Every structure is written in structure tokens, then in C-alpha cells.
């Protein structure tokens, strides 16, 4: 249970970086090797590896070895979890703000 709580935090942390979000959008379409991914960015191979490690730790991507290459693909389950959480958060706040609105109307009558 504790592991899972931390993971949702690490998902949001992983997604907070624009390069990582961009990487996810590319491997969402198809599996890519690390060197193919690196071609899209003006970053060192080491920097890209670092980004991929963060994504992997958050269970947002899966890596598999094929011969000499490491292939990367999107693991969408984690994104679904994060999305559900945000939707819940949004709906909780909308209900609360509805309540605030009713309160403000009532006290100004």
C-alpha cells in the first residue's frame, strides 16, 4: 500500500518534465530504441537515460532488450491511475466550490 502511494507521487514527478512528457507521446505511438528516442532531443545519451530511468521508476514505460538494443514502450496503466486521481480531485473541488457558492448566496440574502 505504501509503495503504491509513493508511486502516484513519482508519476506526477515524472510527468512534470516536458521532455519526459514528449518521450511518452512518442513511445505511446510505437516502441522505440533508446538511440531512436535520443535523436529527437538536443540532449546527451546520459541525459536521455536519466529521463528514461525516472519514467521507468514511475512505471510509465517498459523496457525490453532486443539483441543489442533496449526498446521502450508506454505502460499506460500508470497514466490511467494518475488520470483517475486528478479527475477525482477535480470533482471533489467542484463539489466543494458549489457548496461555497451556496453558502455565499445564503449569507448575502
Amino acid at each position, binding site marked *: *500500500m505504501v509503495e503504491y502511494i509513493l508511486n502516484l*507521487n513519482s508519476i*506526477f*514527478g515524472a510527468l512534470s518534465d516536458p521532455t519526459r512528457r514528449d518521450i511518452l507521446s512518442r513511445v505511446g505511438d510505437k516502441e522505440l530504441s533508446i538511440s531512436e528516442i535520443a535523436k529527437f532531443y538536443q540532449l546527451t545519451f546520459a541525459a536521455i537515460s536519466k529521463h528514461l530511468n525516472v519514467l521507468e521508476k514511475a512505471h510509465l514505460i517498459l523496457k525490453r532488450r532486443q539483441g543489442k538494443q533496449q526498446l521502450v514502450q508506454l505502460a499506460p496503466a500508470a497514466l490511467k491511475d494518475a488520470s483517475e486521481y486528478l479527475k477525482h*480531485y477535480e470533482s471533489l473541488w*467542484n463539489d466543494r*466550490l458549489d457548496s461555497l457558492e451556496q453558502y455565499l448566496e445564503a449569507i448575502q440574502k
Partner: protein
Amino acid sequence: MTENHSPNGKSQELVITRVFNAPRELVWKAWIESARLAQWWGPKGFKMMVAKLDLRPQGVFHYSMQAPNGPEMWGKFVFQEIVAPEKIVFINSFSDKDGGITPNPYMPNWPLEVMNTLTLEESNGKTTLTLRGGPINATELQAKTFEEGRPSMQQGFIGTWEQLDNYLAKNS
């Protein structure tokens, strides 16, 4: 009503905006006076009781909510920044009667602490409320605060809803 862009165009936060037909001073009071907060904060039918309200940075608002015929649940805010009458930054979490941090009793898998930034702007007698928020890792935040000497917000959010929806649409 809900967007995901902050004013400088960086798509990193979940933002909720509402306009209330009330002057800002009243909206501000609704947030910081415990008797008023008790009237609208909790879910419908819940009775809210304030154990403690200490309105200053690192001060705590500790409260319980009693479900009708149900268990008592505790929550707390830890204030980070307060600028009357326009801004409150606070970390919200579930709690226990001793003021600790506990998981959401219904969703134990979800993040323990949420950082919220509330701002109020008035125009023509109406108040625009903007809420930015999302999960934080308290340990990281504490470490950052120690280093930087001031509260900082972990920008731990998804980019745009569209991007996320795209990923999910393509991959489900």
C-alpha cells in the same frame, strides 16, 4: 471552469477557476474563519468541528468531519503562505485526532498530501477564485524548503489534459 495552464503558459498544473457573486472580503472570510469554513468545506450532511486553527506559515488547521451515522474523519491544513485577502497556500491531508498524517480512509492508495494555492481577485463586486493544486511529496518539499529557505512547490503535474487523453485513447 477547469483548465490546466498556468498564466505563463506552462502546462504543468491543475487549475480550477470560479467566479462568485460576492465581494472578496466575504470569500476570504469564508476560508479563514473556522465557523464559516465549517458551513461549506465538508461533504453535505457532515458536521465539521474545529480542533485548532493557527493562521500563519507552518500553522495548522486541524478539524474533524462527522458523517451522518458514520465514522469521524480528521483532516488538516498546514499553511505555507498567507497573504490577506488574496492568497493562501496550504498542504491538505487526512489526519487523526492527534494531528498526524494518515491516508484517505476510502482511497488508501492515493497521495497523502496535496499542495493547494488559492488566490482571490475582485472585480465589479465579484470574486474570481483560482485554485492550483496537486499531490506533493512532503519529504522533498521539506528538503527543498530547508535548502532554499522559503516554501517551494513541487511541480509534479501532468502536462495538458489533451496529451493525457491522447495517450489513453491511443493505448487503451
